[in-house]
């Protein structure tokens, strides 16, 4: 088994150029005009750059959907796996290769609907993984169906009269399930988004970051939310940075989404705990290994 990763930071601090981290031959990417996923991808790569993570040591596992396609654009070891399962694939990868930075890119449907079980258990296990959930409130790739995070009353192709189901708060879910790190940011705040992702990448346990992304073509259009810049600004106006929580205990605008680093704890990381356990088994079991 390889030695676990140690972050050394980018000593050179050379200026970030996203083109050094993407597969140029795949450009332009296939996302719709104005899709916030590209902004989130830039922020991730910026954080990777700032931390000085070697591209050869970066593994990106993504699921199915618009968000799942992002892995193909990253110049790293990338795995585009089955719908809802990237966290499970990544768990296996991270357990045998603690020397890799394993980042999972998933969408709201991928992570919370079909992958919901994997999500809560990965949070609980607290294995060192960085999970980026790009939340655009809709199944974009399949044409705009309602997702677990679609706000109530929103119109989608499967909720023609408005969504009647309540939506998930992914961050609250992650925190309740025991994730080591939980953060949320909108795409408009790119440097802050980068900082949250950077903190997530540095966190020793399972780190979950929800990015509020815009789907203009499939979701915004149906709901009269305007063009991409308008959607981005709307998302920005609907948030409440975590810093404000300290000064205003009771939310003065109850519909706002808290953003920033929402939770960070020191629970033991599973991979390290397992390696320690294995060491104990090994040293204790040498003399008295049972015959089968």
């Amino acid at each position: 088994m390889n030695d676990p990763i140690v972050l050394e930071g980018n000593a050179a601090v050379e200026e970030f150029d996203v083109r050094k981290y993407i597969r140029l031959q795949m450009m332009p990417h296939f996302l719709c005009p104005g899709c916030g996923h590209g902004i989130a991808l830039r922020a991730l790569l910026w954080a990777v750059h700032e931390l000085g993570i070697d591209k050869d040591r970066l593994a990106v596992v993504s699921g199915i959907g618009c968000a799942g396609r992002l892995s193909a654009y990253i110049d790293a070891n990338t795995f585009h796996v089955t719908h809802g399962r990237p966290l499970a694939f990544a768990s296996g990868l991270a357990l045998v290769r603690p020397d890799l930075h394993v980042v999972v890119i998933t969408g709201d449907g991928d992570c919370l609907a079909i992958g919901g079980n994997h999500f809560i258990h990965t949070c609980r296990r607290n294995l060192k993984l960085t999970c980026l959930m790009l939340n655009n409130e809709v199944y974009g790739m399949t044409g705009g169906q309602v997702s677990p995070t679609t706000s109530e009353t929103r119109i989608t192709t499967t909720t023609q009269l408005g969504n009647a189901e309540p939506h998930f708060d992914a961050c609250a879910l992650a925190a309740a399930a025991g994730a080591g790190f939980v953060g949320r940011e909108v795409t408009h705040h790119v440097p802050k988004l980068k900082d949250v992702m950077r903190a997530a990448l540095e966190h020793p346990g399972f780190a979950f970051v929800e990015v509020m992304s815009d789907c203009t073509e499939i979701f915004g259009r149906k709901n009269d939310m305007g063009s991409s810049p308008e959607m981005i600004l709307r998302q920005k106006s609907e948030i409440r940075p975590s810093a404000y929580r300290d000064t205003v205990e009771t939310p003065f605008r109850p519909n706002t989404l808290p953003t920033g680093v929402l939770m960070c704890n020191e629970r033991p990381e599973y991979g390290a705990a397992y390696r320690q356990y294995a060491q104990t088994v090994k040293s204790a079991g040498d003399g008295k290994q049972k015959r089968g």
Partner: protein
Amino acid sequence: MSLASEVAESSQHSGGAAARGSREPVNVLIVGVGGQGVIMVSKVLASLCQAHGLQVKQSEVHGMAKRGGSVFSHVRFGKQVWSPTIPKGDVDILLALEWAEGLRWLPQLRAETGIFICDTKRIVPPFACLNRRQGAPMRYSRETPAEVIAHVAEAYAVDATRMADELGNERAANTVLVGALSTAMEFPLADWERVLAEFVPRKTVGVNLEAFRLGRSWIEEARRTAPDTSDPQGQGLAAAVVPSTVRVEIEAQWCKSCDICVKLCPERCLRLNSERIAELTDPAKCTGCRLCEWLCPDFAIRVHLQPAAAVA
């Protein structure tokens, strides 16, 4: 009962308790930036005067200023005070917690005898950065303390923020200035310290009393020696002006005409051309803030910032 005796005792001082010049009433104008503690300083002073049996009127404007905005507070005290605000040019002591705010209110000071006590701390307001180009000059006062002091009857430029910082709490800068202010009045030292201890947060009483004494001794020292005209920050401000050139590179093949850069550019210097590809309309307006680069979902924009020297 001790209060009564104190009042009786201090009332003997009241005639001469004011600033030298002993004009009635004494007018103190305390100014600064929201969040610095202007109101706290004026409350300390007003409370002290009241304890000495003087009539006090304090009027302040802070509501619209909020944190970071301009705040001022008039404190007038004496045997009899009629009007709550100080007429222009009648300020006996101008206590400023921020350099530019001090300059803003300087015309209020009594020309021949006014005392100006000012922190050299600079808080640059957002509207002083209208030109968002990197290294662009800020619209902030360029006068050095020495230049200002030369025009005022009695002036002290105190680096109170640094002094407080060295004591371990930058926020006690206003108390350093209260210490400086105390030398201009004749209230007993013990009364100053007692009132001060009442108004500052309980946990910070120690550091505030230290700050108070430091401000007091600094000004006494300054009176003995030549006024300090060094300018620790003025130099830095000038040096910050490093003009740079901006070059915006747009990869037309990758642009998908989403309009994000055009609509979200703070300078409105981008547009979609006839082929609906983003282009820079007015390079002179571009400040190189990089928002377009960051927000381009298609990685089509790259902003190159180069120091002017490098270009030349």
